[in-house]
């Protein structure tokens, strides 16, 4: 059971505190409800580029990282399609440093042309390092537009193309800040050695005076149901052929999320899972196979990906995967398999909740979804899934018209 206190400041900032005096540290997590899905389709990659700029100094603190390091702490951030998340971990005695720095950059960022120019280059190098210069690094740049036609999940957080990042102007940066970075669009969570009273005092002191802002909340288009199968074939300088199958699933709050997650474990969540046992071990069609869900807020994807063994045709590999999906659709599962996956979900969840940073991040995420109490009911939601739920979910999900396939061929084939 994770205990937490929750309060809201007058400017709309929501604060959640999980006190734990077994650790000498405090994790400070600030989530802004802005991600790549809130971007202009002509300026993709902006939310992520902006995350880099957030470390370029603010009105009263010329440098963000130096005071954190001086205080013995560590900080970082990530951007995804739904939100941008900043965190600081500090020894408990120095936690006020995080309040000072994070509130100052929420109040007013230092919009310096030099920071924009340098970070633009850094992000371009990141684009190359992680997406273009890695074998299979561009998979998500290809899969997103294949699976989403309308919803902004159709582009990756790094952006559709480098050109969008090259074009960003300082004026756009300012607009973005004032439209999205606001106390009323943020969630602050604390986990670790801090009392709720201290947390409230510090939150009021540092964040209380920041004015609420008009947040830009455009409607995000809903992805219509897929009507026919989609495929894409590419050739790349990689040594091994690979296949990626993606199926649309429900949103994060739908019951199907839990079913789909358990199905991904049944298929590839451990050494006894079906795809691994049958296709890697018995038939030896793949050298590696995986199944997972994207876990996004809006309707997400269920993905199966595999690297083919030499000499195995794409057709054979694909047919073999379908063959493994039938038992789920036809309710031919073993009850032990379902129990196993629930036990695995339990130990994975338990393991993750040991870390204060994970707790702080999860609390912020569930608060964003509208119900922080989910941090305590999440496990129960997995336990409640029955065999017939899995069958029903598999039947809906694994239909041909709901499927997109990326065939990733090596150039020599």
């Amino acid at each position, binding site marked *: 059971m994770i205990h937490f206190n929750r309060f809201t400041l007058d400017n709309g900032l929501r604060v959640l505190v999980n006190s734990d005096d077994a650790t000498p*540290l405090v994790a400070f997590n600030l989530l802004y409800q802005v991600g790549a899905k809130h971007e202009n389709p002509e300026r993709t990659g902006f939310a992520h580029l902006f995350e880099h700029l957030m470390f370029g100094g603010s009105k009263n603190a010329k440098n963000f990282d130096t005071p954190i390091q001086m205080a013995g702490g560590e900080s970082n951030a990530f951007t995804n399609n739904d939100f941008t998340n900043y965190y600081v*971990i500090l020894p408990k005695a120095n936690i006020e440093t995080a309040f000072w720095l994070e*509130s100052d950059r929420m109040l007013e960022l230092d919009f310096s042309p030099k920071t924009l120019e340098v*970070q*633009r*280059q850094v992000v371009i190098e990141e684009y*190359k390092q992680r997406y273009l210069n890695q*074998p299979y690094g561009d998979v998500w740049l290809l899969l997103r537009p294949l699976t989403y036609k309308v919803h902004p999940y159709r582009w990756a957080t790094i952006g559709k193309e480098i050109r969008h990042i090259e074009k960003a102007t300082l004026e756009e940066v300012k607009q973005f800040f004032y439209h999205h970075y606001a106390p009323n669009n943020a969630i602050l969570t604390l986990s670790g050695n801090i009392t709720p009273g201290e947390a409230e005092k510090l939150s009021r002191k540092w964040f209380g005076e920041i004015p609420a802002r008009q947040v830009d909340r455009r409607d995000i288009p809903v992805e219509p149901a897929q009507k026919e199968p989609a495929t894409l074939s590419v050739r790349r300088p990689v040594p091994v052929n690979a296949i990626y199958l993606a199926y649309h699933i429900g949103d994060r709050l739908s019951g199907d999320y839990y079913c789909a997650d358990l199905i991904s474990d049944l298929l590839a969540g451990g050494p006894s899972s079906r795809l691994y046992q049958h296709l890697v071990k018995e038939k030896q069609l793949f050298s590696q196979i995986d199944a997972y869900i994207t876990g996004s807020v809006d309707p997400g994807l269920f993905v199966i990906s595999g690297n083919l063994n030499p000499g195995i045709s794409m057709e054979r590999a694909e047919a073999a995967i379908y063959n493994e999906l039938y038992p789920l659709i036809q309710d031919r599962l073993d009850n032990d398999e379902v129990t*196993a996956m629930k036990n695995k979900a339990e130990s994975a969840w338990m393991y993750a909740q040991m870390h204060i940073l994970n707790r702080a991040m999860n609390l912020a995420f569930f608060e964003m979804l509208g119900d922080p109490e989910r941090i305590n009911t999440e496990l129960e939601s997995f336990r409640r899934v029955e065999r017939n739920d899995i069958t029903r979910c598999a039947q809906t999900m694994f239909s041909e018209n709901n499927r997109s396939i990326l065939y990733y061929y090596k150039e020599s084939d």
Partner: protein
Amino acid sequence: MNKKNIIPDRKTPPGINPVRNLNWYNPEKQFLDNGMNLYIFRDSTLDATQLNISFYGGTYTEQKPLAASTVIGTLQEGTKKHTAMEIARQFDFWGSYLKTSASNDNLDISLFFLNRYAHENLELITEIIREPCFPENEVAIYLNNRLEEWRIRQEQVAWLSRKHFLERIFGEKHPYGRSYQAKDFQTVQTDDLEQYYRLHLQPANGFCILSGNITATILNEVKNTLGSISMPASQRGRSIEAIPVQSSTPGIISIKKPNALQTAITVGKKLFNRNHRDYAGFQIMNTILGGYFGSRLMQNLRENKGLTYGIYSSLSSFRFDGLFSIQGEVDTAGRDTALQEIFYEIEQLRKEKVPDHELQLVKNYHMGNLLQAFDGVMNKADLTRSLLITYTPFDYFSRLTKEINAVTPEKIRSLAQKYLDPESLTVVTAGPK
């Protein structure tokens, strides 16, 4: 409730209390009957346990390439009593996570399990260690999959540059410098695995660490299971001999990787491990140079010039040596500038004294970092394992704390002069030119 907001003084940063003491404590130590050392970190709030088991040797002691990693990687692929599938099914059914890995100096097993299945997990993990049978078909599948992974890694500039770097530092025949060839995946045989297994996976050649809610029942189970693995008398008290390193080759080489979009750079040399008297001072110097986000290399190459997404330096501890290295992937057009700036920053450390403010910052950062590394019993277990692998006594952290606090700007400069002579460094780049 009506609370007025206090207007904060934003111009003045909040006061800072540097971390002075680390709450490290030594694990409880017990001996199992078969000579295996057992270490315990307790946390009664968890309903789960992590069991770490390590054996000395690692790839350092393998006669045939890949023997060590294949032994540990296929340990759960069948015993005299159970098939790979039966073992996989059982661990998955109990919700356990079993991971195995091989490094230079050790082979590691980690098993995370729910306490309600403690008995079952301990019995099965013991069986796997006591009587694996390395079935030929399972080993063949394992090696095939590793080969396919290896072929993908050949395409990564960072990996290529690191591989050639290690070869030049330690020599391509030395275990710390050797890299595997495609043919190695076909030549390792079951006999090689059995031989490696018999020599190195022996209770007295390893140790285990329990962390979590370690009840008396669990402890008793451990004694009855892991503690009951017997070993032949001939295997007791084996020691691992250091293999001499032929001289390293300094200077620059460029590995061509046509069409790569970036160039990976590795710069460094062979040094010492954490038991050396200059280790703490060098660590502080390394942090200043490239060991954290605020480092000089990161500030210069990333935050000022935008040449890279990230560049880091580190001093890794092996059992018999240490390795200092700087690594990053840079814009190919900026490769020469990047190299020039790397050597500029090294030169600065050799010429100028580090400003007091920067040194204080790095010391504070280091202490905070250690505090984080100790947080929770499972992190403590990981650190304990790394100390045991390098034969480092547990008072290491209190010594380190004292030594870190004693480091002066003069000391940093003299260490840079002593160890970072540019002529002594090996540079490898991998990219399109």
